[in-house]
């Protein structure tokens, strides 16, 4: 049973942000290869998005998203209130042009930045 207050907060965030990414770390400093891949895709699209770092409350947030969208792993990309998917789905939909369509933007001409191996090493810090 998920925390009621946290669930309400998450629902408000999803409703209030047309494009919202729940991720491990931040767009500037992703803490997981899968989250980094979604950030790289989104950064090639001409779209503003909100990002929530799930690491400070990982398990409570898993319980909340399990109830809201029947999905427990992060990253999770929500578009217009609906869960689109995690890294696999976002990349597949980017490749097929479905992501641009869902976001209501033009498909970028350039491919996303080359994939960085989801290594165990700490994320790059660019100051």
């Amino acid at each position: 049973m998920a925390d009621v207050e946290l669930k309400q907060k998450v629902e408000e965030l999803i409703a209030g942000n047309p494009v919202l990414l729940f991720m491990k770390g931040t767009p500037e400093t992703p803490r997981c290869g899968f989250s980094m891949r979604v950030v790289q895709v989104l950064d090639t699209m001409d779209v503003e998005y909100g990002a929530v770092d799930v690491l400070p409350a990982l398990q409570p947030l898993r319980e909340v998203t399990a109830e809201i969208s029947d999905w427990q792993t992060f990253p999770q990309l929500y578009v217009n209130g609906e869960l689109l998917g995690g890294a696999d789905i976002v990349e597949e939909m980017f490749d097929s042009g479905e992501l641009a369509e869902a976001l209501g933007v033009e498909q970028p001409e350039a491919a996303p930045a080359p994939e960085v191996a989801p290594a165990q090493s700490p994320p790059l810090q660019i100051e």
Partner: protein
Amino acid sequence: MAADLAEIERMIADALPGASVSVTDETGTGDHLRATVAAPQFEGLARIAQHRLVKAAVKERFDDGTIHALSVRTELPG
């Protein structure tokens, strides 16, 4: 404990009759797997819903800790 790839394939195939399923070990450690699934049940479903069907089929192996990660690629049967 490493996952039994054939068992994982069978669990997905049993949940989605008529599907063609291929499961590989992504990291050589037996707990990060990749499943490629083509199933007639995917017709008309959003990708997230297709992935939910696959993950639900192997939920037991997530819950018991055998699998830590499962990358999924879904397609409609050709």
